[in-house]
């Protein structure tokens, strides 16, 4: 943390940090404190009065069937998104790492979806799977699969997982490729001379060396699935049908802004903040481990 060389000045460092400090206090610390405070009150939706209820909001939350359902949906959704996007990211990275000719070409073709907004990815897949006009829905119909994600909860969940993962693969691809390029070629060559085939080399050399990257990506992907996929859910299913895609972030928005249940929404925010904090701590540990390598 300490830098060897420093300037002496009484007021300048405060001035330098001031803009960031003001924004952080106004839009991060203060609202986070508000959320904690609100989570302990039951508030009138029109702001006319508030009654202190202690942990009641949390207790209610944990008994509410729709909240528990949302927790289950979120867990399934996050695991599915992380597995799909990590799996395909690794697959493409391993093959792209093998290629000598055209590597840059393939890389360009695979990384651009990173820049596509989750909300736009949602619309693209929504159009493909739209029950009346969608190309894929039409094809599925010809194969005897009745597709209607507005009625079928499993199909809705499949669709949002697809849209959310599609865009995340390229991010994981980049990290895995960088990880693979960092593996010394001599290691791989030595194993090849000892007669280890590509399959074996992958599992005994490359995969273990990639595991720190993979763990870091796992945390990032879970954070992505928890929070950044709001746009996908809002565009594609709106949490429906019947709560089948109602992930936690969507529920905070839904209960707070449409249901006007301020205390309950605040309690949900606090739970989410605890989850993020936990994930951040895990991530920091992992990053430190990587530095010690």
């Amino acid at each position: 943390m300490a830098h060897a060389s420093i300037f002496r000045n009484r007021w300048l460092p405060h001035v330098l940090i001031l803009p960031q400090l003001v924004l952080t206090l106004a839009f991060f610390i203060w609202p986070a404190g508000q959320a904690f405070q609100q989570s302990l009150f039951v508030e009138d939706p029109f702001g006319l009065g508030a009654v202190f209820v202690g942990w009641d909001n949390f207790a209610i939350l944990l008994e509410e069937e729709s909240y528990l359902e949302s927790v289950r949906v979120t867990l399934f959704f996050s695991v599915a998104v992380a597995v799909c996007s990590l799996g395909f990211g690794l697959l493409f990275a391993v093959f792209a790492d093998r290629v000598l000719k055209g590597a840059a070409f393939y890389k360009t073709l695979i990384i651009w979806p990173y820049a596509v907004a989750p909300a736009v990815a949602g619309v693209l897949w929504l159009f493909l799977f739209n029950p009346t006009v969608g190309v894929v829905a039409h094809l599925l119909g010809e194969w005897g699969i009745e597709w209607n994600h507005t009625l079928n909860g499993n199909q809705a969940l499949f669709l949002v997982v697809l849209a959310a993962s599609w865009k995340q693969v390229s991010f994981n691809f980049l990290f895995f490729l960088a990880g693979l390029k960092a593996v010394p070629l001599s290691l791989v060559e030595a194993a090849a001379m000892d007669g280890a085939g590509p399959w074996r080399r992958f599992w005994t050399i490359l995969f273990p060396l990639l595991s720190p990257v993979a763990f870091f990506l796992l945390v990032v992907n879970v954070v992505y699935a928890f929070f950044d996929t709001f746009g996908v859910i809002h565009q594609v299913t709106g949490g429906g049908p019947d709560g089948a895609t109602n992930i936690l972030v969507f529920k905070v928005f839904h209960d707070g802004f449409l249901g006007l249940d301020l205390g309950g929404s605040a309690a949900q925010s606090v739970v989410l903040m605890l989850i993020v904090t936990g994930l951040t701590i895990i991530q920091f540990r992992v990053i430190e481990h990587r530095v010690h390598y």
Partner: protein
Amino acid sequence: MVENRPWLDLLTHGVLILGAALFIFPIYIAFVASSHALPDILAAPMPVWPGGQLLENYGAALSQGASAVETPVWVMLFNSLVMALGVAFGKITISILAAFGVVYFRFRMRMIYFWLIFLTLMLPVEVRILPTYEVVADLGLLDTRAGLIFPLVASATATFLFRQFFMTVPPELCEAARLDGASPMRFFFDILLPLARPSMAALFVITFVFGWNQYLWPLLVTTQESQYTILIGINRMLSVGDEQAQWQIIMATSMLALIPPVVVVLIMQRQFVRGLTGSDK
């Protein structure tokens, strides 16, 4: 490549081409849809080749919007651009200054500042959405660019990256500058800033994409159609109730909405990769 295995080479290219196709497919369909008249799209199966309505559809979207959203798409594109640039420049400016302050000075409160800022490292706006909305409303910033941009600017990730970068700058540079009698700000502008340019470029790509792709926050803060960002506009075009959504316009708008961030990423691929992974390969 370590050994010669023709079948594996074949498999390699096969998998990569399949992967690339998987990424292109939705875009191609969207492009085709954006080039036909609505009845052609509604007649299942949809045509697989581009039609003749391309210019009409994009022209209509840009100048008139869709039936559900009367605001022309170019206005919403402009709003998105302002937001993305605001977030990118705002983040880079305030965080490079803060990182400079934290790394190159010793003062009381330093650790308090440090922890206040880094507490927010991964706290996305989504988790504190309602209270943040209330703060912005209390400040009278709803439906303003400031209200749209500021709450997204103050995250510690960029500060953290600049701090890491400053720690790797040799202390001798700073010593030399001090011996020559340079003030701290002079050192910052003449030496540190030029050195930090690659990091700034990398951060620009990432924060621009981050800003352009914001969805939940603009959804809440912008209530007037003229203030919509392009992503909110697309959502509103879809919410037509029982009417038929104008898919040809929606797809044209979606294509327009994904072009700017994709172009930024593709043009600045190297900086982008370095910014994300810390490696150039």
